[in-house]
């Protein structure tokens, strides 16, 4: 597979390490009342879509960027590659 790195251009997937669902960005707020339940879902429950999937890849043999790759799990077509930091900020993460 080839991942079109937003900063470095097309790179072979062998340079990357795969983590999984980009929902891992959405770490729950530990201060809410049902935090334990939320962390359980965060830690253990994943969607497994046949089709478009947003997932985290780490450019370990490259610039060490975490990327959010939108990949079709049926065809392996990659429709979008973003810096995970940008995605995290857009999803409201900060300090």
């Amino acid at each position, binding site marked *: 597979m080839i991942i079109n790195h937003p900063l470095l251009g097309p790179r072979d997937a062998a340079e990357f390490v795969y983590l999984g669902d980009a929902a891992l960005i959405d770490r729950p707020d530990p201060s809410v009342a049902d935090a334990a339940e939320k962390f359980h879902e965060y*830690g253990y429950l994943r969607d497994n879509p046949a089709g478009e999937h947003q997932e985290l890849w780490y450019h370990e043999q490259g610039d060490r960027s*975490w990327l959010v790759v939108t990949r079709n799990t049926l065809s392996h077509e990659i429709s979008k590659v973003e810096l995970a930091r940008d995605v995290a900020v857009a999803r409201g993460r900060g300090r």
Partner: protein
Amino acid sequence: MSQTNRIKGGLVDRSQTLKFTFNGKSMQGHPGDTLASALLANGQKLVGRSFKYHRPRGIFSAGSYEPNALVELRTGAHQEPNTRATVAELFDGLTANSQNHRGPLEFDVMSGVDLLAPFLSAGFYYKTFMWPKAFWEKIYEPFIRMSAGLGSLSMQEDPDVYDKGFLHCDLLVIGAGPAGLSAALAAGRSGAKIILADEDFLFGGQLNAETYAVDGMAGSGWAAQAVAELAAMDNVRLMNRTTIYGAYDHGIFGALERCTDHLPTSGGKPRQILWKIYSKRSLLTAGATERPIAFGNNDRPGVMLAGAVRTYANRYGVAPGKRVAVFTNNDDGWRTATDLADKGIEIAAVIDSRDGTPRASIHGANMVMGGRIVDTAGRKGLKSLTLSNGQVIKADCLAVSGGWNPNVHLTCHQRGRPNWNDDLSAFVPGDDLPVGMSVAGAANGTLALGAALKDGRDRANEIVKDLGFKASRKAAPKAEDEAYKGAPFWHVGESRKRAWVDLQNDVTVKDIKQSHAEGFRSVEHLKRYTTLGMATDQGKTSNIPALAIMAECTGKTIPQTGTTIFRPPYTPIPMGALAGRARGKNFRPTRLTPSHIWAKENGATFVEVGNWMRAQWFARPGEKGWRDSVDREVEMTRASVGICDVTTLGKIDIQGKDAAEFLNHIYTNAFLKLPVGKVRYGLMLREDGIAYDDGTVARLGENHYVMTTTTANAVLVFRRLEFARQCLWPGLDVHLISTTDGWAQFAVAGSNSRSLLSKIVDDGFDLSNEAFPFMACAELTVCAGTPARLFRISFSGEMAFEIAVPARFGNAMMGVLMQAGEEFDAVPYGTEALGVMRIEKGHAAGNELNGQTTAVNLGLGGFVSQKKDCIGKTLSERPDLNRDDAIRLVGFKPVDPAKPLLAGSHFINKGDTANMANDQGWMSSVAFSPIMGHSIGLGFIKQGHERKGEIVRAVNPARGSEVDVEIVSPHFYDPEGGLQRG
């Protein structure tokens, strides 16, 4: 006897003669021959024995899909089994041997197996060997292993070198037959970057095998001219002897180039190269494969594919027989008869399964329209064939054609399914092709030559225009469209004898019918029950006939019956090529510690720790075993001073205004108030609340921290920190660099460590307890100006320091430290002594941080701050991880001090039966403590912290050991910690 079957013509170089041996017999051939063509030229028809029945077999095809002619090439360590003689290029001095027989090939002792055929039909494993049960291991399996199989391995290490490489192109053309050459010419003229690959050593494909003309010249001549034109183009890379074996995601292809297989020796060059080709577009022009017709005893040497027979005659100048018969269901089969007749070879008969009039007139040949062959004769080579009307025809070669299958394999590598084409009675590429792939020529069902040449050029022009190049206007090469029509005919129903479908795995028509009768009707079941198509040829000649026969049984059409899924590789890939250079010691990188050379010169025994080579101990003369060395290293360190290279621990440089806040998220304990110049121990959890890693953090400056991790987790912790920094808390101003390899670090431990170090620090750097107390850190210089970092931390429990210098000074620093320590009897120590001292001190390490234990289990519950969040905090509070009877890390000592302890032993209360229900926990680390004078252990036991003084049993049934042990504090040595602070 020499080349009795060699005839005029062909593309072999008769000016040179090559000598080779087959089963020890000397034979001759010419450059341009394959082993198969040379064997046929020398009249060698019998070349092997079949997989299951040990039937005599000969050469069946002239391509990479050969099911029969598998041989062992070369000798000694270079011996390679299961090589297809049809693609092995002849070279001078080649040694080839037949395989899968006991005794000589002609008198295989195992050929009696054929008489057992009634018992060995499809599924015989599951039925025949059911009883008696005891027979399986002693009788059945050894017999099957002895009788079935293919070639044998040399049992020596492969002496050849294999390599890997990467290539990029605009267009990859797969196959250099008429369509491929025509496409490459058109695309090459446009200026696009082209790779043209073909598995053959000679470009031209079917053009070299036929007598058709292109642009008014011989087809092979036109091919040579086209290759010459392509070779002159800078934008074209020609790769012969290169098989494109797999179509992968995003236009990536796997290719195997055989660089020196055709030479007597590799001369030190890589034997084969495994290429990864990145293409913008690809054009599959892989041609078509002929398929046989099944009839009684159709597996005898001399029964061959019709296209192969004329390939041997036209390309190699070899007559596969003296008197040849043809059995066909299509017009193309007739071409074999006319081509051979033109070369003066006697044609005994042409048997066409179709009614009607003969398609050609051949002098002296029997023309049998609507004919059926029901049986053949000839023990080690064909002698005659019998028709359904009883007529017997003498022939020593039978050319069979059941039509042609487009080579759609690569179009299916990403799960695309081919479509059935009724006109061709064959599958053609489907609509769901791999990204960027087009198909042209015979592979696309365009079987006629003129049309294939045009198809190749037109598709190539479409592609280059698509890529933004200007297509050449040059017309496609011209050739006639030959006749190839046929009528489906798969097997001779009248035949009472066994009729082979899959020659390599010995699967017959009867097996397929039996599979149907027993309910294995899905094509996937058929395949697994009969093993059809599962041999090294992957059923390239057998799959479609088998599908047709199954369709006949079920009354369905062939497309309704389905097709199996084609997967890479297209042809077998040697393990050596897949491994490339990554073998033996080079399988993974070896990392050497900065003081490796010093350690080697000073008698270190090394141990692999992940990728690292670490000194395990330093033996001295007179020491009888490793224990002597390790005990001495521990005793001398504790008595005076010892030095250990601890560079392998991960080091991460953390800088930024928010570095402290970042660390607060990562570690369970608080880091906001760590002062500059101080070190703090830290514990990390996984998000599920389980302990993950531990280490220290030194604050070197206002916004500058240095973290250490365990050796094993250095890479993984860094990855996690980057994840936390970029994905979880992207608003923090913090940056990370891995500096594990940047700094050489040494533990200097023992009561004389301060005295030793004071000799090398510059400018009287104050090492006193007041100025540089336990858990202090500083940046300084040593040895007159070498930058260094000093940490007063202790893993051994002694007063100890760790000193770091830039890695390039590491080896020298080890020498300097040892020299400075000479007056104190300083000793280097390895990982064993390090381990003994950490167990004596009760520190958790990898055995304890094993992915199952929590901070509470480890006795580190107090390190989980209740005042802040951190990774893993919430889930570490789950009730089940905090049960009253949770396991706790404690120490263990044998009641009888003479008894050794074993790691992995489980604890059972006195009086309980030793079973899982009574399991109390396990021993995680053990060592002999020279200080205590007996074995000591660390382990987890339920409520261990409240059970000190209790005696339990440490049971290890796997190693037959049971020892009574007393539960004690994990801190065996200096439990108050006075020494490390002192």
